[in-house]
């Protein structure tokens, strides 16, 4: 336990001492991600539940969605949670071209999310079908299967882009986002 506490004490902030040989300006994306944070907090009032569905991706996008949970992007600290059930979700993140074998599962997941619901398609494949396109096995882009609010291109998009996409989705559907002044009173809709 002592060992763990010592380790935590030495790594108070991500990047602070991780690589002592690097200058602190390692990555511009860190700054970008941090600029988005206050906006998300203001709009969400610390509550956004996301259900992710892999519609048939190569798993590259999944790795970058995972990265959102690391201490740099710290999305749980912003009140964004990935949830196991679509019934608990406000937003659906979909990756990959939608394979025909996942078409039904994706539609069912979408239907199970209570309205109002947001859909963000992640990655070039989700946006356009990408390199896999449409075929006997692939439905292509996500919007060929369910309605999509926002697309985030990239192969895969870096975590800061995914975060920005989530924020954009909240902005394009004002019905879901309350006035900034009353953000803390925001309660997610149930039906």
């Amino acid at each position, binding site marked *: 336990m002592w*060992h*763990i506490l010592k*380790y*935590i004490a030495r*790594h108070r902030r*991500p*990047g602070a001492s*991780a*690589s*002592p*040989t*690097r200058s602190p300006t*390692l*990555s511009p*994306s860190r700054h970008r991600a941090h600029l988005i944070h206050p906006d998300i907090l203001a709009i969400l009032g610390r509550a956004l539940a996301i259900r*992710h*569905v*892999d519609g*048939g*991706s*190569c*798993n*590259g*996008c*999944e*790795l*970058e*969605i*995972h*990265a959102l*949970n*690391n*201490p*740099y992007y710290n999305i749980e600290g912003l009140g964004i949670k*990935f949830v*196991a059930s679509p019934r608990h979700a406000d937003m659906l993140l979909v990756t*990959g*071209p939608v*394979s*025909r*074998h*996942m*078409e*039904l*599962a994706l539609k069912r*997941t979408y239907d199970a999310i209570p309205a109002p619901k947001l859909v963000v398609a992640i990655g070039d494949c989700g946006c356009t079908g*990408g*390199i*896999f*396109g*449409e*075929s*006997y*096995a*692939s439905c292509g882009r996500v919007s060929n299967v369910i309605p999509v609010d926002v697309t985030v291109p990239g*192969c*895969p998009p*870096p975590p800061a882009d995914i975060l920005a996409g989530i924020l954009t989705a909240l902005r394009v559907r004002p019905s879901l986002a309350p006035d900034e002044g009353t953000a803390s009173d925001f309660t997610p809709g149930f039906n």
Partner: protein
Amino acid sequence: MQFSGLDCRFERLAAPLPMHRARVDATQWSALAFAVATTKGRLVSLWGSDRRAMGDGFAVATAYATAEGLLWVELGLDVMRPAYPDISRFFVPALRMQRAAHDLVGIDAEDSVDSRQWLRHGAWPADYFPLRIENTGQERFAPQPDNYPFVFVEGDGVHEIAVGPVHAGTIEPGHFRFSVVGEKVLRLEERFGYTHKGIERRFMGMDIDEGARLAGRVSGDSTVAYAWAYAMAAESAAGVAVPERAAWLRALLLERERVANHLGDLGALGNDAAFGFALAQFSRLREDWLRANFEAFGHRLLMDCIRPGGVARDLDAAAAAQLRRDAVALVAEVAELKDIYDEHAGLQDRFVTTGRVAPELAARFGLTGLAGRASGQVADLRVDFPWPPYDKLAVTASTQFNGDVAARVAVRFDECFESLRLIDALLAALPDGPLDVPIAIRDAASGAGWIEGWRGEIFVALETDARGRIARCHCHDPSWQNWPVIEHAIIDNIVADFPLINKSFNLGYSAQDL
């Protein structure tokens, strides 16, 4: 070359690893499978092709790993009755590959014990075979009924838990059918194919460079390994060798990919045993590592950095020095976290004896790669057939014999340290020279690539048509071999330990659904 006194002639492929190819008849096909099995060789892959465009029939091919290297064996099949002798009686992992070959090409393993569909669910009818030349791959069908006959377990108090295809976390889709009594798992049956998006059909007709982009997207977590295996296959088809500097940079990329994946998995394994500290720390280290990838190579996951003929980007001296300092710093960090893992009684209690695959079971099922090395299956291409630059680096393979989650964690730590040592050695002696050689394939040719990715051996077989475009490209992932073993690793464990056991293997879905 001859193998085990069999009268089939193997031609050596122009490739940095020893790979040989032969055409056989049905008798030799079975005799060879038997000979490889009895000399402790392994089945690497099995796939089907339609060769009618070249005036041939159908064909089935296997790749075996033997002490002499890789054997690529091909059996021509009758057009009217495309069937071949089953080899799953010698190699258990062949079962699912044979079922997949049926779904894609319509060729059958005679007398196979399992001929259920594998890749085909309800998206296309049973008499449609996407890789046959009369089909374009662009056909669309109304969804077909999909009543997959799972094996049903009966008994007092036995019930089923069906999980997936959409899982609770951010992972790829697949279906797991548990038969349990109370908390104890009696049987697990897996069903995959959900992410099948027609990759092998997509390859057909592409030029060599387009194919490289697609190969790099078979599995995002192994993009470097696939890109290298594909590039090696293309270079072997074209008969060119890559410059020394390109080979060294490729190895640097491959080891960086291995470290990135091990960092991610080590954190996730701690997290699955409710040790959130581990996830926070390892995911922080992984993020630093990926950002350094972006700075040095322009892509966090290193996609498209390797291309046929060489590498797409160079590394200047300052960047190389920085990557070297990073590797040294990371050794200290991971060593400290390893001490914390080793001393943490709660964590070890979850890891030790959980999801055990004994070496005998591993050998019988052909468990391969990282998981194989945790169960005493000593094989690592970087050690067994060190190709440039590994021939200068004296790689040490990690081996454990307990075969439990703890052993797979130990192998990951070992390999992380070994890869960091390799990265340091590669950067210390990076040779100067050109980054690539021109590569052009203008006629029918074939080649193969074989790379030790972080998960295990990745194999690519490539054939071009008379115009030099891709006639067939088969990509093989070690997940084919290792998924069936998880069905055994979980037996007698509790359902709640499945995520931990599954993560300790961390196998691919997209990588094998193709």
